C-alpha cells in the first residue's frame, strides 16, 4: 500500500460547483422558515423589508412576498441625500413586479439631527484639510488580498466638485470617527424599519447574507438588527442563484453591489471583501470546511500561497468581528453573590 502525504491528498468533495443549490427546494425551505418564525414563533402578522435596489434586499423581499403575500409585506425604501438616485427607481420596479406597495422615507433630516454628515466630514478634514461638503468621499481597503501579505489598512478617498481625486491612509482616530459617524445611517434605517413594523404588528426581515454576517460586514444594531434572517445562511453567489429563480430583474442582478453608505460610489469589494464574490465564496467555504490548502488551490487554479493568505485573512476577520455578533453579555441569576 502506498502512503499518501497530506500535500498529495485531494479533497474530492471540494470543487468549483460546490455552492450550486437546488433553488426551488431552498426557496421552499426559506419560505417555511419565514412563516414559522414570523407567524408562529413571533406572533407577528406580516413583514417589513428594507429595499435598496440591491440583490440581497430584492431576494429577501421576493421570499417575504412568497411567504406572506404582497398585502402583508411592506417594502420600505430608505433614502438619504447621499444615496444613489438609482436605488428607489429599481426598488419601485421590483415592487411593481411582485404587487407590493412601496413606502418611501427620507432619513436625511434624522441623520442631520444626529450629526452624521458633519461628524464624518470633520474626521475626514483631519486627514485632508481642503475637504468640504461639496466633495464626495469613500473609504476603501486595498484590493489585492490574494497577492499581498499586507494587513489591509483603510484609506479615505475624496473627490472634488471638479473631479480631482485624492487618497490618503486613515490614521486610527479619524478612521474610528468616520465609521462611527456613518454607522448612524444603518442604525437610522433600522429605527425606521421598526417604526413601520411595530405600527402594523409586523416583523422586520433581515437582508444580510452569509458573507456579511460571518465576516462582520454589518453594523451592530444597524443592518444587523432584524427579527428574522431570510438569507443569512447563503453565500453571495447562492443569493444570485435564488435571484434568477425568483425573477429578480436583470437590472438589479447586473448591478455591482455597493455599500450605500458613502457619498462616492463604493463597491462592497473595495470597502470590505477585497475579492470578487465568485472567488471569495469558494475560498470561504473551503476555509470553513477545512479543505486542505493544496486541494483548494488545485480546484481553484490558485497558488497555495494565495489560498493560505485568504485562509489567514478569513480567520482574522472572524476573530476581529466576534464583537459584532455577540449578544448583550450579562451575569445569570445563579452567578449572583446572594447567600
Amino acid at each position: 500500500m502506498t502512503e499518501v502525504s497530506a500535500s498529495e491528498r485531494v479533497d474530492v468533495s471540494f470543487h468549483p460547483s460546490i455552492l450550486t443549490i437546488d433553488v426551488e427546494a431552498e426557496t421552499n425551505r426559506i419560505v417555511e422558515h419565514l412563516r414559522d418564525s414570523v407567524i408562529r414563533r413571533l406572533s407577528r402578522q406580516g413583514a417589513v423589508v428594507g429595499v435598496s435596489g440591491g440583490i440581497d434586499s430584492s431576494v429577501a423581499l421576493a421570499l417575504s412576498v412568497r411567504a406572506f403575500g404582497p398585502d402583508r409585506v411592506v417594502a420600505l425604501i430608505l433614502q438619504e441625500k447621499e444615496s444613489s438616485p438609482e436605488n428607489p427607481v429599481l426598488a419601485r420596479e421590483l415592487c411593481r413586479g411582485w404587487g407590493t406597495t412601496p413606502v418611501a422615507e427620507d432619513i436625511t433630516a434624522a441623520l442631520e439631527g444626529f450629526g452624521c454628515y458633519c461628524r464624518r466630514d470633520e474626521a475626514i478634514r483631519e486627514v485632508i484639510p481642503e475637504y468640504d461638503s461639496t466633495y464626495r468621499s469613500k473609504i476603501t481597503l486595498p484590493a489585492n488580498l490574494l497577492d499581498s501579505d499586507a494587513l489591509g489598512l483603510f484609506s479615505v478617498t475624496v473627490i472634488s466638485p471638479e473631479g480631482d481625486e485624492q487618497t490618503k491612509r486613515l490614521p486610527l482616530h479619524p478612521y474610528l470617527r468616520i465609521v462611527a459617524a456613518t454607522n448612524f445611517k444603518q442604525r437610522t434605517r433600522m429605527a425606521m424599519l421598526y417604526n413601520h413594523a411595530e405600527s402594523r404588528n409586523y416583523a422586520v426581515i433581515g437582508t444580510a447574507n452569509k458573507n456579511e454576517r460571518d465576516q462582520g460586514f454589518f453594523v451592530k444594531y444597524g443592518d444587523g438588527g432584524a427579527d428574522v434572517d431570510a438569507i443569512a445562511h447563503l453565500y453571495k453567489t447562492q443569493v444570485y442563484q435564488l435571484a434568477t429563480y425568483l425573477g429578480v430583474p436583470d437590472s438589479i442582478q447586473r448591478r455591482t453591489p455597493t455599500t450605500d453608505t458613502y457619498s462616492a460610489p463604493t463597491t462592497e469589494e473595495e470597502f470590505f471583501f477585497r475579492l470578487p464574490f465568485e472567488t471569495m465564496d469558494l475560498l470561504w467555504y473551503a476555509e470553513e470546511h477545512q479543505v486542505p490548502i493544496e486541494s483548494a488551490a488545485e480546484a481553484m487554479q490558485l497558488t497555495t500561497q494565495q489560498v493560505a493568505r485568504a485562509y489567514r485573512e478569513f480567520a482574522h476577520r472572524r476573530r476581529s468581528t466576534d464583537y459584532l455578533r455577540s449578544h448583550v453579555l450579562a451575569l445569570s441569576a445563579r452567578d449572583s453573590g446572594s447567600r
Partner: protein
Amino acid sequence: MTEITDTAVVRQQIHDYIVANFLFDTGDVKDDTSLIGQGVLDSTGVLEMVLFLEERLSLSVSDEEVLPEHFDSVDALVAFVTAKMGTDGSSGLVTHET
C-alpha cells in the same frame, strides 16, 4: 542626555505598550506569541500599533510594511523597528543617563 537605540529598550517599550494598551495590564505576552493569531491585535489594534510606532517611536510606516512578518509578535516588531531605525535614522527612544 544620550540617545539610546538599544534593542532591549525597544523591546521593553513595545512589550509594555502591548500589555498596557491591549491587555489592560491583566496579562502578559511572550516575545514570540502570535499577536494576530491570539486575537491580541485585531484590525483596529494593528492601526493602534502603527500609530504607536509613528508617534511614540518617530518612525514612518508605509502601507507595504504593515505585514504579519513585522507585526505578529514582539520579536517581529522589535526586528522591524530596529531595522527601520537603522535606515530611518534615530527614533524617539530617549533616556537620561545619570
